[in-house]
């Protein structure tokens, strides 16, 4: 045990497999072709051959038993290529509900991020348009509901397969309680943070590539200090988000309560770090895509260029949960309890 902020050998092996898979199978043309729904069945089926859908399920359930620290590596590769597959939602759901066809990947699962409303309806569930099984909170029950997905949903900013789903369908299983739901939601925060890190990383690459190619006044625009400085803040933001995301996964895997010692800047509480990673990665991805798009000039605004795909997903894939400001208020409740809350 000692500080080691590089990928472990296991993490590196996972990175190698998934980075090469997505760069081969899911260049941005695939994400583009999957719009507006945001789901590519053929790509999902290829992930099945990698046994990716079952990675997060326990080995007892026939899954891969992967740790969250391993899954964040996978999730970042999804984000880097904005692959139109709800792998993050599926991994989160199968961790708590590892049914055989879900582990095999022949059916999809997802998590409803907000409790069901009074009518038993989950609103705008990520992957709700395509997943057979939805896990989520209904009252104080953490339930899994199996029903036919609509196959379509409202067109949205991030081209994500969102849809409303019922929490009161006949084939409903109570799997746990609110505490387990909160833990599952935290793992969604961490893995989504990792996808946002991936989006930010690619946004930087796109900006640098364009700034080296594009010439104005007879020179590459990347040689202008104004352009350079707009981009120079981004690697620190994205690297910081990656470190924070990995730390959140690492403390979760450790399974210890952790510290909330703000005075010494010593936070190892898993729930606090999950929110921190989510908020920071969402901001970092928003900043990276914003500046990258701007550096592309008018072309960044044109549908033909890829940066707009990343720009919309940086926002859409994060805000499906909530305004980061409200996430900050939840974090504040953990870090700065008021007298009434103690």
């Amino acid at each position, binding site marked *: *045990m*000692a*500080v*080691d*902020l*590089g*990928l*472990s050998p296991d*993490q590196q092996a996972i990175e190698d497999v998934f980075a090469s898979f997505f760069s081969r199978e899911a260049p941005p043309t695939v994400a583009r072709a999957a719009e507006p729904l945001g789901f590519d069945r053929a790509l999902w089926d290829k992930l099945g051959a990698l046994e990716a859908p079952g990675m997060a399920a326990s080995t007892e359930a026939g899954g891969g038993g992967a740790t969250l*620290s391993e899954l964040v590596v996978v999730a970042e590769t999804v984000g880097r290529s904005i692959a139109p597959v709800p792998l993050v939602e599926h991994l989160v759901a199968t961790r708590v509900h590892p049914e055989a066809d879900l582990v095999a990947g022949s059916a999809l699962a997802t998590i409803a991020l907000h409790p069901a409303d009074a009518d038993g309806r989950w609103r705008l569930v990520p992957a709700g348009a395509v997943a057979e099984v939805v896990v989520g909170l209904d009252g104080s029950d953490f339930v899994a509901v199996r029903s036919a997905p609509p196959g379509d949903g409202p067109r949205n900013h991030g081209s994500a397969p969102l849809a409303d789903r019922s929490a009161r369908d006949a084939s409903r299983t109570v799997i746990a309680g609110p505490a387990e739901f909160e833990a599952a939601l935290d793992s969604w925060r961490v893995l989504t943070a990792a996808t946002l890190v991936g989006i930010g990383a690619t946004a*930087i690459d796109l900006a*640098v590539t364009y*700034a*080296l190619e594009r010439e104005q006044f007879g*020179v*590459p625009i*990347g*040689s*202008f*200090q104004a*352009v*350079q*400085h707009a*981009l*120079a*803040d981004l*690697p*620190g*933001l994205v*690297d*910081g*988000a990656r*470190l*924070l995301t*990995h*730390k959140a996964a*690492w*403390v979760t895997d450790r399974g210890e309560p952790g510290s909330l010692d*703000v*005075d*010494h*800047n010593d*936070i190892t509480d898993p729930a606090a*770090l999950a929110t*921190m990673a989510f*908020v*920071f990665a969402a901001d970092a991805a928003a900043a990276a895509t914003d500046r990258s798009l701007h550096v592309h000039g008018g072309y960044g605004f044109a549908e033909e260029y890829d940066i707009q795909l990343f720009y919309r997903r940086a926002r859409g894939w994060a805000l499906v949960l909530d305004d980061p*400001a409200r996430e*900050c*208020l939840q*974090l*504040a409740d953990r*870090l*700065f309890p*008021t*007298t*009434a809350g103690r």
Partner: protein
Amino acid sequence: MDFSLPPEVEAYRDQVRAIIAETVTPEVIERQHRTGTFNSPELNRALAEQGLLERAVPGLGKGDPIELYVLFNELEKAGAPYDALAVAIMIAGVVNHVGTDEQKARVLPSITSGEALVCMGYSEPDAGSDLASLTTRAVRDGDEWVIDGAKMWTTMAHEARWLILLTRTNPDVAPHKGLTMFFLPMDTPGITVEPVHTMATERTNATFYDNVRVGDDCVLGAVDEGWRVMTVALSFERGVMGGTNPAVPLLRHVRDWAERTGLLDDPILRERMARVAIDSEVAKLLTQRAAWIAASGGLPGLEGSMAKVFATDAYQRASRWFLQAAGPEGLLQFGEPGAAAEGWIEYDARHSPVTTIYGGTSEINRNNIAERHLGLPRSRR
């Protein structure tokens, strides 16, 4: 990845925390802000007594960059006066790295005992970010060197025993090739010190060199190799010797004040406090990464630049938010009745502006990141 400190580093951190608790009293902190001298002899001696200064000097002691990060991060989080100590430890590392045996014997014990400090004569009135354009000259005269010129921002010159001084010895070659580093006692005849007072109370100095005569024993490293000696110093410092978690003590003061005044229920303040906590965590992780790279034998220059640019921006943001949140009471200074957070909010609003300037401006760091990390062409300036 593994974010845990090894048990021996945790024990070291606890030892540092105990010394801070013992020696960094409210009186010490009050004196720092009253006098503008950001140094505590009590703290330095206590660290020295337990062997922690020698242990911290790169290459001399344990030389563990993780420990170096832990030491200065703990001091910074506690709001301890550590600026002078950081310079002394860093320069001791340089002397150890490039100095002669005689220089090491003459200099290092005085620093590792916590008795002597070092000030840095790098910047000049007309040479800041473009340091290689400096004009302070050292000219050979028989067995001696004769130094004439002026330096700016020579912080601690009024208390330091030693001076590390970058001079031009060869005006006929490329600017950074004709420089030589000297290491000399501050009581050498011909040196004068003029105070420069700053908005944040901290005192720095302008120093003047008039016919200062020293021997070859004061040349640090080889003649005309001064630029290389300076990069050695930078390689030790890069982001791991404090300066990347200044918002931690600010947040603590704000939280205590908000708790006392009932403002802790205010959602706008709570959101901002949470964001500051997130930024402080990220700043720490970026700093830890630089330390980890150094511990693995790498040179974390770019990672240090990223940590500094992010941390200092975040600190200025935090300082601005809290100054606004505190309203009129936030404008009151140390010692004034009713001052928000006992004057810390007002102090940090005065202190934070300098942090994107000293130790390498954000613009110079961004140039480095753009050219050497992103691979963009050398910029048109």
